[in-house]
C-alpha cells in the first residue's frame, strides 16, 4: 500500500508536467484552431534555454523566468510573423506549417549548439531527497516542480475564470465566431494565447531540464502524450486538460507497475476508450 501511494505521487508529478504542456496546446487549438505540432519543439527550446542560462550565469533559478519571458516574446513573434498569415487558411495548412517549424527548430538547435547530451544541475538548495516510503525517497527538486506546476495551474485558472481578458479567451475558445460579435479584439487575443502557450511549453521544458538533461529530440515523446491529454480533456478546456493530465499521468505510471507488457499502449487504449464513450472528450461543453 505504501508503494501504491508513492506511485500515485509519481503519477501526479508526471501528470502536472503534462498539464503545463497540454494546457498551452488546448488553448491554442481552442482559440486559434491551430494544431501545433511544434509544441514539443517549444518544450525542447525551453530546456535548452535553461541549459544555456544555467551554464552562463551559474544560477538555475534564472531559467524558469527566462523561459516564461522568452516564451512570451517568441510566441508573440511567431504568431504575428507567421500564424497570423494563416488565419483564413485551412487547418491542414497550419499543420503543415508547424511541421516545417519542427524541422527548422531542430536544425537551428543543431547549428547553434551541438548534438551532445548536456546536464543541467539540480539547484543546490534542492539537491536532497525526502524519504517517502520504505527505501524510496523523493527528490526535493521533483517536489518543487510539482508545487510550481500546481501554482501555475492555480494562476491560470484564476486568470481565465476571474479576469476580463480571461473571459474573452474562454469565449474565444468556446465559440470563435462570438468574439467578433462581442466586438473583442480577436487579433490581440490570438497573440496573447499563442504567446502564453509558448511560454507554458518553454517553462515546462526549463523545469524538466534538470530532471531529463537536454538532448536532441527530447520533446518528441511529450508531444503525443500532451495531445492525448488535450483530446481526453476536450479541446479548448483548461479544466479538462488538468484532469486529463492527472488521469494520463496516473494510468501511465500504474500501467508501468502493474502491466509492464502493455505499458507502451496503456495511454492509447485509455484515449480510445474515452473517445468511444464520449466522442468529444470528458469535459467538452455543448
Amino acid at each position, binding site marked *: 500500500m505504501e508503494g501504491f501511494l508513492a506511485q500515485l505521487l509519481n503519477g501526479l508529478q508526471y501528470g502536472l508536467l503534462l498539464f503545463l504542456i497540454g494546457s498551452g496546446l488546448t488553448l491554442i487549438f481552442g482559440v486559434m484552431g491551430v494544431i501545433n505540432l511544434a509544441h514539443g519543439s517549444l518544450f525542447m527550446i525551453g530546456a535548452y534555454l535553461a541549459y544555456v542560462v544555467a551554464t552562463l550565469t551559474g544560477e538555475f533559478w534564472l531559467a524558469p523566468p527566462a523561459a516564461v519571458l522568452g516564451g512570451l516574446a517568441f510566441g508573440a513573434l511567431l504568431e504575428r510573423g507567421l500564424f497570423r498569415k494563416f488565419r483564413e487558411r485551412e487547418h491542414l495548412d497550419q499543420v*503543415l506549417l508547424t*511541421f516545417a517549424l519542427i524541422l527548422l527548430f531542430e536544425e537551428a538547435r543543431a547549428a547553434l549548439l551541438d548534438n551532445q547530451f548536456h546536464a543541467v544541475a539540480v539547484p543546490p538548495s534542492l539537491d536532497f531527497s525526502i524519504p517517502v516510503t520504505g527505501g524510496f525517497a523523493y527528490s526535493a527538486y521533483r517536489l518543487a516542480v510539482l508545487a510550481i506546476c500546481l501554482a501555475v495551474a492555480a494562476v491560470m485558472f484564476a486568470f481565465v475564470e476571474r479576469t476580463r481578458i480571461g473571459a474573452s479567451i474562454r469565449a474565444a475558445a468556446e465559440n470563435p465566431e462570438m468574439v467578433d460579435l462581442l466586438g473583442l479584439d480577436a487579433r490581440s487575443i490570438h497573440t496573447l494565447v499563442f504567446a502564453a502557450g509558448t511560454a507554458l511549453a518553454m517553462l515546462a521544458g526549463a523545469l524538466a531540464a534538470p530532471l531529463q538533461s537536454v538532448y536532441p529530440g527530447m520533446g518528441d515523446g511529450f508531444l503525443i502524450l500532451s495531445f492525448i491529454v488535450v483530446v481526453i480533456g476536450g479541446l479548448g478546456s483548461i479544466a479538462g486538460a488538468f484532469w486529463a493530465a492527472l488521469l494520463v499521468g496516473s494510468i501511465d505510471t500504474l500501467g508501468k507497475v502493474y502491466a509492464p507488457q502493455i505499458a507502451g499502449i496503456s495511454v492509447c487504449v485509455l484515449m480510445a476508450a474515452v473517445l468511444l464513450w464520449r466522442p468529444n472528450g470528458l469535459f467538452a461543453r455543448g
Partner: protein
Amino acid sequence: MTRPGARGNLWLGLAALALASMPLWAAPWHMQLASTAAIAAMFALSLQLLAGGAGLISLAHAGFFGLGAYSVYLLGGGRSIFLTLPAAALLAGLAAAATGYLALRTRGFYFLMTTLAFGQMLFFLFHDTPLGGGADGVFIARPDMIWTVPKAARPVVFLLLNLTILTAMYLFLWKLMGSLFGHALSGIRANEDRMRAMGHDVAGLKLTAFVLAGALAGVAGHMAAVTDAFVSPELLGWHHAAEALLMILLGGIGHLHGPILGAFALTAIREVGQSITERQRLVEGLAILAAVLLLRRGIAGLRR
C-alpha cells in the same frame, strides 16, 4: 476534390511513360528511387480517398500499410505474388473495418487522435510482441513473380511493377470518385449533416471509404515489402502516416492526383537535400515552408 480531366490524365500518362522508360536511360539507383516514390505515391493516394475524398484525416493509415507489408512475412515468404497481394489487401481491409467501425464514431480532431491510438496499437503489436519477428524488423524472402527475377534486373522489374500498380490504383480511384459513391463522399466532406438529412447512409459510406482506403494502403505496403524485402515496425508508426499526409498537402489535397505529385516532389526534395548538404532537414523544412506560404492549393493547384 477535383479529378483531372482528359488533358490532365494525358499529362499524367505521359509522365508515367517517361518513368517507365527509365530502364533505357537511367541508372539503377534512380530507378530504385522512382520505385520508392511510386510506393509512397500509392500510400498517399490511398489516404487521399479519405482525406481529400471524405474529409477524414486518419493516422491509423500507416498501420494498414504495415499490415500489408507484414502479410508477406506472415505468409512465410517466397509465396506467389498472386497470393500475397490479395492477402495483403484483405488483411489490411479487415483491420480497417474493425478500426473504422469504432473510430468513425468520433469526428474532426477527435477522429484524428482516435485513429492515432488505433495505429499505435497496431504498431505495438509488431514492435513489442514476437508476432512480426521483433522490434528490429525482419528480412523476407521475395515472393515469386512467375519467374525468378535475377538480382541485376530487380530495379527494372520493380519499377515497372510499382508503376503499373500505381497507375491501376489511380484509374480505380478516378473512376470511383466520378461515381455516385464518390459524389456522396464529396457531399460528406462538404457538409456531413446535410447529407444525413438528405437520407444518405453517412456512417455506411464513411466506413466503406475507410475500408477501401485501408485495403489500398495494404497494397502499397505489400509492394514496399516485395521491393525492399525488409519490413520493420516503423512502417506502422504514426510518423509514417503523417508523412503520407505531408505528401498529400504538398501535392494538393483538393486534387485526386495531388498525392502523386507530392510523393514524387518530396522524394526529389529529399534526394536533392541529401546530395547537397548534411543539413537535409533544413532543405526539407524550407521547402515545405515555401510550399505552404506560396502554393495555396499544393503543387496540383499551380495551374490555377
